[in-house]
């Protein structure tokens, strides 16, 4: 009995131990949760900033390439724009024979070719440089066309340069006012772009949140930036004088305001409740590819 007597804890000892354990555990718990909150908040903030950065890269990158005066913007509003997005660039090494009716054949160089794939593809929408009169650039224009078959491998008939690889492309041109369907109006070496018609805009996705995304005609939206607030995208269109315009052909620059928010609510410092954190970016992009001269700007002297 005397031996057992020496091994036990008194009630006071137990209580003190429990209290101390509780204090230490609470402190540790609070430290852990504070750290976790900081970690989550930081991760969310990083995600938010990456969203903003993506917005500052993707939208200006697409808008810079626009030629609004020649029909690249088909519809526009404060939250959405329907536009031609340039995707590929190639160069002709054997131009189509003009004047021509119906489908035309031409050869595109395999190199240089820009846009990720080896050449154009069946059904690609194209813009082909129309030189017209080579002595002036006033009449220079672009012919919209569509690729009508899978391009076939061939060679470029370069004089003195061997036979570098190329692709034979059959196109259906959509001759428009200003395009010249006359002999030599499309010259060897001329650039050819492909493009897709895209919507960029603000939309509410299936999770109930708002995103900035893109979509093609008849297809659902694909989110590319977000989540954003319900007023997460504001586009403003300016003409050459810097005045806001509602006419697509007059757009010379586009103002972008993007308000992104965190994907989950984050507790603010010293705040008892959690809220979505919001950050924004404002930028303005000059359209680089608008005509520099010619009607109605004046002659290309």
């Amino acid at each position, binding site marked *: 009995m005397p031996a057992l007597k020496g091994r036990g804890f008194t009630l006071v000892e137990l209580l003190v131990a429990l209290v101390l354990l509780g204090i230490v555990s609470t402190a540790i718990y609070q430290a852990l949760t504070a750290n976790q909150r900081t970690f989550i908040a930081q991760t969310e903030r990083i995600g938010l*900033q*990456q969203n903003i950065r993506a917005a500052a890269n993707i939208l200006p990158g697409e808008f810079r390439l626009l030629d609004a005066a020649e029909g690249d913007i088909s519809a526009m509003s404060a939250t959405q724009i329907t536009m031609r997005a340039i995707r590929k660039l190639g160069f002709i090494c054997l131009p189509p024979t003009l004047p021509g009716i119906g489908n035309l054949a031409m050869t595109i160089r395999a190199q*240089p070719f*820009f846009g990720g794939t080896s050449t154009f593809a069946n059904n690609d929408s194209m813009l082909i440089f129309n030189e017209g009169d080579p002595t002036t*650039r006033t009449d220079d224009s672009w012919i919209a066309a569509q690729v009508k078959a899978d391009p076939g491998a061939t060679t470029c008939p370069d004089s003195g340069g061997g036979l570098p690889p190329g692709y034979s492309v059959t196109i259906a041109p959509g001759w428009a006012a200003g395009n010249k369907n006359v002999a030599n109006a499309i010259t060897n070496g001329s*650039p050819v772009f492909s493009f897709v018609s895209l919507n960029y805009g603000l939309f509410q996705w299936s999770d109930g949140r708002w995103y900035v995304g893109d979509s093609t005609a008849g297809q659902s939206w694909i989110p590319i930036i977000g989540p954003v607030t319900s007023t997460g995208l504001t586009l403003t269109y300016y003409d050459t004088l810097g005045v806001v315009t509602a006419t697509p052909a007059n757009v010379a620059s586009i103002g972008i305001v993007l308000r992104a928010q965190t994907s989950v609510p984050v507790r603010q410092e010293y705040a008892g409740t959690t809220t979505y954190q919001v950050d924004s970016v404002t930028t303005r992009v000059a359209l680089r*590819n608008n005509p*520099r001269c010619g009607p109605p700007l004046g002659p290309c002297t």
Partner: protein
Amino acid sequence: MKRILRDERGMALALAIVALVIVGALVAGALFSGMQEQRAAENSRRVLQAFGVAEEEAYDVINQWNTQVYNGQKVYPLDSTALVTGWPTTWANSANQTGVYGGYVYRLNGQQYLVDVTARDLVSYGNAALQQEGGGGRERLGLLVRNKPFQFAIKAALTTGNGDAVGGNSTISGIDQSPTNWAGCGPTGNAVGGIRAASGDVVTISGSAHVTGNPPVIIDTSVHASTFDTYYNLLVSMANITIPATTFATAIAPALNASGQCDRTVSTNWGDPLNPTLPCGNYFPIIHITGTGATTTINGTEGQGILLVDGTLAVQGGFQFYGITIVKGSLKTAGAGTSPAHFWGATMVQDSVQVGTNTLTGSANLLYSTCTIQTALNRTAPGVMMRSRGWVPLF
């Protein structure tokens, strides 16, 4: 000993260690993601910097367009011009010192070019450790450029602002002709007038002289001083060769340097139109002969490009010029030896003109040629961005 062991039975130390590990992991995680974020943000900034450098330098290529180098190079894929000596292994500092760049100019056809510029931000370019980490911005940008030829309203083989006396065996023809030794001229165009003279001028044709064209002679009320002056001063400012009026005899001829290349430092080297495939065949200078009231006499042998003469030009012997000639004074030609023409292209003379005098014989011909006119204009034309869609990122 037993007492010490009993003291070590507590879990405070273990708890503290576990807590420290968890807190440490969270802090380390936050630090890591924070650093990643900072790096991503830094890279975004550098990419923007590189983009700015690429765009600036691409536009600079156009602003400082080198007609003799870019316009004279062979069409892709036969030729390209590096923007920086030693490119692609050597980079050059950008004008604003915020990055480095390099690239090429490709000639796509007779009028079009691709300026291909790659740029990097300065910080990552000079920081090997940063490059090893994959840091740094790099952008590649293209500008589609085309020539902006001067728009001369050429309506005749010879346009004059004063009376003309055409005699001897000379021929002035407004029928479009291409030099037989020039490849790639394409089909000829419509005929223009033979002589187009200002209202009130008298054109006399005597001896065995021939003036042909559609029509042979036009007396045109729209011929004014501006017909000759419109681009004269601008062309003078772009001249590759400026020399005073003198008697050149037969000194005007192509010249090669020690390495066999066309020597463009020789002021009497005006290109080699008779041998387009030889080194000077691609050289189309703008030549300005100064000296209002002075006379320049040339006997031989050949030149091409745009010839601007402040005073009077006297051409004798077998001298041939291919391109556009603008004479502010008067023009006198005599003989032509066995050469088919003194002037291929278009000739514009503001003052009185005597072409092939009655006392001289030979074949002092002035032949209208759209091919030589267009080639001379294209080779001397500055580069400008395409009218639209000339700006393209290359990826």
